[in-house]
């Protein structure tokens, strides 16, 4: 990085939109990922695409690293300015530009919070389905950059399935448009998909064309308790084999069940090996039929008890245990790592067992819950970052977990992104050829390596 004159940036965005005090820089040195922090040299808040373009031209000329940031709720250190430089805070891009009811498309600026988009389209009976745990805080820009998923991934997919087009600013300041409102579009390389999930390493997203879908008319939730993990696994596969795709198919392991029960005292059996939470949605008649079929599958796979919600109040009760999973685990210890290793759904029981083995072997506390239907697990490691000896064991447990996921044909990340957190295992999952291709793309689009450098594909 070359020395740069902060006044040059001030002339682009104005004095009020640059933060340089030590306290401000400190406030943008971290995100929601434990153990990663580094101070930037400036925090810049651009107002429009043109300003972003000018900032990128300036940064490119001076080889200054740039890190786009929304709300900073990232779980893979994607927002951490590890090499100093400029944090590009996109929160002033906060407008929903258009909700096009004829094409079922929303055109949105990246600083809009996901839940706010859903509130806006909800009045028209529509939803934007990707719903990561942080919907109430995360921005569209952040969730597109990380290709965020959520609880409804099994039926509705993840962010990349809903991004139809983007306006981005490249590393050299050029403004580029990808995709559009077309449902079918095979013209050229699919740059929209490339940029979605690029974690700020290829471009700065300045506008998003998002697909909307009709909101389901009805929902039905069920909870099943299993004394045997394999039975729970078979029930998951059985539901899919019965040609039912629930919106939600969640699992909690024994460690999580015990923690939740200890925290909430709602009568969960402490010796249960798994709890499944299933929700089907759609047309009311179909929902009733599907719920009955799911019930039959659960029973035929030896569910110890099954509860079906009769109304919204009962639905909330069933959901309470699942909603409490992360808070209950997080309260155990100061530091919480929420991982998101993902395996093919029929490997979920194998994976959960391997996590337990890793926890015991390295004497680390891990509770696992997650999206059983899409194989996206959240091994949640609770520890204390201030204890270096414990952190060594945590790292060894993570190493076992990620290597197991890869060995089971899975992937390092289902929805949180790679960033820095999972970078050490990228080569192992993708192999040298894929890594070279990915790095070649990075070098082509960002020859000075200024965009979120060192993340996702590592040093180039």
């Amino acid at each position, binding site marked *: 990085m070359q020395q740069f004159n902060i006044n040059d940036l001030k002339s682009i965005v104005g004095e009020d939109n640059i933060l340089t*005090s030590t306290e401000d820089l*400190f406030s943008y040195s971290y995100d929601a990922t434990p153990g990663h922090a580094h101070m930037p040299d400036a925090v810049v808040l651009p107002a429009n695409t043109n300003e972003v373009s000018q900032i990128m031209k300036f940064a490119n000329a001076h080889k200054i690293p740039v890190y786009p940031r929304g709300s900073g709720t990232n779980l893979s250190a994607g927002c951490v300015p590890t090499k100093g430089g400029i944090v590009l805070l996109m929160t002033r891009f906060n407008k929903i530009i258009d909700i096009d009811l004829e094409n079922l498309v929303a055109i949105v600026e990246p600083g809009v919070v996901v839940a706010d988009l859903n509130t806006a389209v909800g009045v028209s009976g529509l939803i934007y389905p990707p719903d990561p745990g942080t919907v109430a805080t995360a921005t569209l820009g952040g969730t597109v950059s990380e290709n965020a998923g959520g609880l409804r991934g099994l039926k509705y997919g993840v962010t990349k399935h809903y991004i139809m087009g983007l306006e981005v600013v490249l590393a050299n300041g050029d403004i580029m448009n990808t995709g559009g409102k077309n449902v079918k579009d095979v013209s050229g390389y699919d740059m929209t998909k490339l940029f979605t999930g690029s974690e700020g390493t290829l471009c700065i997203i300045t506008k998003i064309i998002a697909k909307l879908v009709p909101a389901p008319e009805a929902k039905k939730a069920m909870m099943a308790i299993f004394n045997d993990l394999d039975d729970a696994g078979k029930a998951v596969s059985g539901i899919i084999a019965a040609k039912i795709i629930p919106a939600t198919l969640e699992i909690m392991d024994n460690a999580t069940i015990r923690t939740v029960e200890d925290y909430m005292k709602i009568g969960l059996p402490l010796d249960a090996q798994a709890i499944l939470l299933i929700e089907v949605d759609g047309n009311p008649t179909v929902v009733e039929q599907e719920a009955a079929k799911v019930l039959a599958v659960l029973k035929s796979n030896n569910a110890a008890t099954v509860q079906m919600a009769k109304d919204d109040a009962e639905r909330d009760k069933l959901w309470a245990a699942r909603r409490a999973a992360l*808070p209950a685990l997080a*309260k155990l210890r100061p530091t919480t790592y929420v991982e998101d290793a993902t395996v093919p759904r029929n490997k979920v029981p194998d994976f959960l067992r391997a996590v337990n083995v890793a926890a015991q072997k390295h004497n680390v506390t891990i509770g696992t819950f997650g999206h059983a239907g899409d194989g996206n697990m959240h091994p949640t490691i609770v520890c204390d970052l201030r204890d270096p000896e414990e952190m060594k064991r945590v790292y060894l447990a993570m190493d076992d977990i990620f290597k197991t996921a890869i060995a089971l044909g899975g992937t390092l990340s289902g929805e949180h992104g790679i960033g820095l957190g999972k970078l050490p295992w990228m080569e192992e999952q993708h192999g040298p050829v894929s890594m070279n291709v990915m790095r070649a793309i990075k070098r082509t689009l960002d020859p000075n390596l200024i965009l979120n450098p060192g993340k996702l594909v590592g040093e180039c």
Partner: protein
Amino acid sequence: MSDEINVKDINSHDKELLTDIQDALANCMKCGNCMAVCPIYKEVGRENAVARGKISLMEGVLSGRLPISANFEKAMSMCLSCKACATNCPCGVPADELIVRGRQAVVKARGLGPIKKKVFALLKHRQLFDLSLRMAGLFAPLSFKKLPGKMGTIARFPMPGMDVKRVTAPMSAHPLRSQYPEVIKVDNPKMRVGFFTGCTINYMYTDVGQATLNVLKANHIEVVMPSMQHCCGTPVFYSGDVESAKVFARHNLETFDSYNFDYIIAACGSCTEAFKIEYIHMFKDEPKMLALAEKISKKTYEISEFLVDVAKFDKTQLGPVHATVTMHDPCHMVRGIKVTKQPREILKAIPGLTFVEMSKPDRCCGSGGSFSMSYYELSRQVNDRKIADIASTKADIVATSCGTCRMHIMDGLEQNNLDKETLHVIQLLDRSYQAGSQQ
């Protein structure tokens, strides 16, 4: 002398200052869920406006990477103490309390600001405090213009620390406690309660105090307003001057204990919270005072809570109040003492009254006590959202249970040219009893 004091200085002087909250700070996992509910973050959009950012800054100070600077002080001051972050925190981090600790560190390291220093010194001296607020009441008409028909005034002259357009509560020429004897007797009293009036009710909103006394009388309850009672200490406590707050706490606990009341009531969420919760926290290391604080805490109720849960207020004597009413839940009611059902039960019991719920009734009104003095424009922005929610209900009256909320909402309605009344819940109940007695 340098403007900045670094961690070494603090360690040598006040080692216990932040170090004992090190673990509490470490429990914040930086998930950022506080961003979803923080009213200040919603307006400002900057990391150090929200709890996660403030906790990080405190960690920075503790680790020696940051000084307790003017910027640190500003960040700590940018908080309404609305407790929304703590309620929404998945890790159970009491961020609101930690921010007070951050302010406490500022007070110790940098001292109180000059205005607060003078005000708090005055506050601690009960008689002088009483006298100066009485004088303010007597001379108020000279400096404030009363708004017709409302308990609101606007300044005639620019006042230090006060926006010229701002509507505030009138300083009463006759404080509540000077209008009544200390003991208000009733025939065949079914119980005897001590009324902690609090400053806003004693010196400004005497109408709320009168309504409280009327309603208790209608329910055959003998009321005593101990003459020696003093400010509850909340404003001082939340500014980080905990030592001064303890002076108030000790005085009030001892004063109220000497009467041996069946119950103690207050008509303000923050005052009640002080008696019920904060005094216990303040004396956690002083066993004798702690025992007293716990004893008093058990007897203390907010007026709506008391009327519904304890006194089972008389619903047979109520007359009609024809109005559409919506309710704003003060932060220290909903997230402090957790009283939201009882005021609604009272409102819904009033014949002729139509109750409509506003969107987000528990969202902070933006007052934050002295916050609205320091950051009036920002507190207006927060309040404008509340006013928009009120407006969409089409209610004639906004009911609430806190003097400073009432003042800030009245100001917001005035600034937005909306002709609506803002009243304490107890005033509506009083109107209903009066209507009942005329039938």
